[in-house]
């Protein structure tokens, strides 16, 4: 369990409160407490760690409990640097100071106003600017408060929180190197400990722990993000308790409970985890009977639109044109192609399997030629065929690979996956695998 935070410089009561709110983060909290003294603190600190590893939470708790003057800004929320400056000035000096910022402020304006305000209201303690969710691309575009600010001003400390390592942020000619702190990821045991804290009051702690154990067993190898796991735990708990409520099992029947929940969790991994289905849909599904639930219509199910007959063949022709090299068309689509020698040259290297490299662009004529050979009846090339090609492009099943200006030789690429095209070919009784070069 957690040991109490020992720090002679601070109030005992406050430390105890902090220790309670920050499970499994004693080492980092102690380090931060030692840096944030009553007087001047280190000018720039860079904290990095995975998502949901407790970075903003820890800093927030420490700042609040110790009542240090601070402002939290999020780089993701502040789309422009003006919003960032405004927030900082608002928190430290009030709305009047924020109103002094000109429209489209630069860092120079911000520093000038900040210095003026500081001289008007000097602070004995260091002020902290905490910048969360920093992105390295934004920094290179000079869109954020970097450690350079601490270089230029004193009595302020900049704390940067990020998922990305400091090497990506460092400007080319270097700058004031911040102190790097790593918030290590939670181990499986620590995750169990933290997740068990949100237990349901009507069930015992061991029962909830066993549930968390099962959940971690299914999801741990895929996802170690605390937030996601908490979300999944909250969504699926009612299903886990179902046998108990129906009287079919008791709390100690771990095997029965496991058998009940495990397929459900596997299904969750395919749907809710991938955000194919919203949490609301998921909860509704759980309430319905198993027979009624049927197949979960996730987001990807909506891409399986019903296409007209010729559109399906056009799509199949497009897929064949994308994934077969042009020289093999003769072999597949001409009725009497004679003998084709399979030399060593033709033997394909696995790397160049087109299914790994992606679709290649093809001219429209080639697709139409394949189409006419693939469709079993004689089809006249009328406007309705061509308009179907345009609608396939609108549906983003085909991508236009040539520029809009080229009207005489448009090129396309097929943008559907193998599973999709197999499903479509099955509906028209066409064996597509026979016609694919990669599966010869």
């Amino acid at each position, binding site marked *: 369990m957690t040991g109490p935070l020992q720090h*002679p410089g601070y109030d005992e009561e406050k430390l105890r409160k902090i220790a309670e709110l920050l499970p499994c983060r004693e080492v980092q909290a102690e380090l931060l407490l030692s840096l944030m*003294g009553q007087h*001047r603190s280190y000018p720039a600190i860079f904290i990095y760690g*995975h998502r949901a590893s407790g970075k903003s939470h820890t800093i927030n708790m420490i700042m609040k409990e110790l009542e240090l003057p601070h402002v939290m800004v999020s780089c993701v929320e502040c789309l422009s640097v003006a919003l960032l400056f405004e927030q900082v000035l608002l928190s430290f000096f009030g709305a009047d100071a924020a109103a002094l910022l000109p429209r489209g402020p630069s860092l*120079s304006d911000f520093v000038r106003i900040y210095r003026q305000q500081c001289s008007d209201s000097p602070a004995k303690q260091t002020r902290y600017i905490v910048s969360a969710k920093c992105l390295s691309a934004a920094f290179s575009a000079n869109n954020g408060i970097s450690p350079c600010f601490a270089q230029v001003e004193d009595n302020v400390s900049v704390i940067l929180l990020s998922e*990305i390592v400091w090497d990506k942020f460092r400007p080319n*000619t270097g700058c004031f190197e911040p102190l790097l702190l790593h918030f290590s990821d939670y181990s499986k045991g620590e995750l169990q400990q933290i997740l068990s804290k949100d237990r349901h009051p009507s069930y015992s702690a061991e029962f909830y722990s066993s549930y968390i154990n099962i959940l971690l067993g299914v999801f741990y*190898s895929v996802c170690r993000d605390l937030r996601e796991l908490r979300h999944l735990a909250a969504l699926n708990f009612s299903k886990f308790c179902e046998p108990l409520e129906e009287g079919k099992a008791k709390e100690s029947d771990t095997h029965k409970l496991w058998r009940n929940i495990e397929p459900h969790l596997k299904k969750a991994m395919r749907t809710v985890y*991938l955000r*194919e289905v919203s949490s609301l849909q998921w909860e509704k599904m759980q309430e319905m009977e198993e027979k009624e639930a049927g197949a979960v219509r996730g987001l990807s199910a909506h891409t399986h639109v019903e296409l007209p007959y010729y559109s399906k063949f056009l799509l199949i022709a497009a897929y064949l044109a994308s994934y077969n090299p042009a020289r093999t068309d003769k072999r597949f689509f001409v009725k009497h192609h004679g003998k084709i020698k399979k030399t060593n040259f033709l033997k394909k290297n696995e790397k160049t399997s087109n299914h790994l490299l992606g679709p290649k662009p093809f001219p429209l004529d080639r697709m139409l030629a394949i189409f006419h050979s693939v469709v079993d009846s004689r089809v006249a090339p009328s406007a309705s065929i061509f308009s179907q090609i345009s609608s396939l492009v609108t549906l983003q099943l085909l991508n236009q690979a040539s520029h809009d200006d080229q009207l005489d030789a448009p090129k396309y690429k097929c943008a559907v996956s193998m599973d999709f095209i197999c499903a479509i070919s099955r509906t028209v009784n066409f064996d597509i695998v026979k016609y694919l070069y990669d599966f010869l």
Partner: protein
Amino acid sequence: PCPLLCEAAHCTSGVFVLQIQSCKRERDIHLLELLRRTALHGESNSVLLVGPRGAGKTMLLKSVLKELLKEKDVNKTLMQVHLNGLLQTDDKIALKEITRQLHLENVVGDKVFGSFAENLAFLLEALKKGDRSSSRPVLFLLDEFDLFVHHKNQTLLYNLFDVSQSAQAPIAVVGLTCRLDVLELLEKRVKSRFSHRQIHLLSGATFPDYVQRVQSKLWLPEQFPDQRFAHEWNNSVKVGLRVTVAKPCIKPADVLEASRVCFADAKANMLHGLSILELCLIIAMKHLNDVYEGEPFNLQMVHNEFKKFLQRKSSTIYHFEPAVVMKAFEHLQQLELIRPLDSPGARTQREFQLMRLLLDTSQIMEALQKYPQCPTDVKQWAMSAFA
């Protein structure tokens, strides 16, 4: 005793004040003379202070300015303009700042009126009107000089150096930079107007020197209130990196701990926190890099490689849907461990977008050793020479 301790530990470049005071006195004098000539005799000068970060450029400048302002005549007439390349990222902003600091007539309160061209014309007018005898000398201090070089057409630098070369108002331009090759970055017309006067500050200190200086910096003076504490403290000072209220004495173990924190490989730390699926994807990428010698890959290739590994193992623990693998791949992209070759706006499907791995083989192997509860078959797969 805390405030004093914190103060002592806080000056980073203060360590090198000793250096300046001891053996580089002539540089000090040289710069002082130069600036004094501008301030008193109306001579225009330009000079660059070049040295690595922490070599003491700002300290030198501050001490020279302090020395200079001691004279009453200088104090009354000299005007200073402080610019910083990090703050004034554009010539427009820099010009507004100069106008503001010189309190020219087109400034009301804080607002500077007029467009860039107007401000420039006004400033040059104001500087041109004077001559040696009747106008006040101006000192331009440009911090992070190498950043001003990247402004459009180097307008500001050109004009400042131009004024310093012609017989107009006496100005001194002092630039501070950490780039040795800063002169190569200047345009020909700007370079010719610069006086090519450079002062190099190099910290040619060896490790024993460094230790001695840090020791003398952290040494507590005799006026320290608690004599016994001071004595204990001085005894335990070796090279101090982390001083807290809780640990009033520095011990070697603390130093080692602090150095471990400072030198830890950041990427290896991040690899430690990946899920097994993501780790397997990284190992698959490593194998692709080994076999195809660093050519870029896409998700389909990585997934294929991973499936080949799974085929050899009979257990079904790691069979995941393609969409789950895609999500893991995108997480790696978010952490910037892999990076797409071209911009994301390109019209390729996500599975086929070519990427590069930004990790080294040794980093991956090291991270694997430290990975908690790494399954043996994954480890063996990573160690094997061929997929």
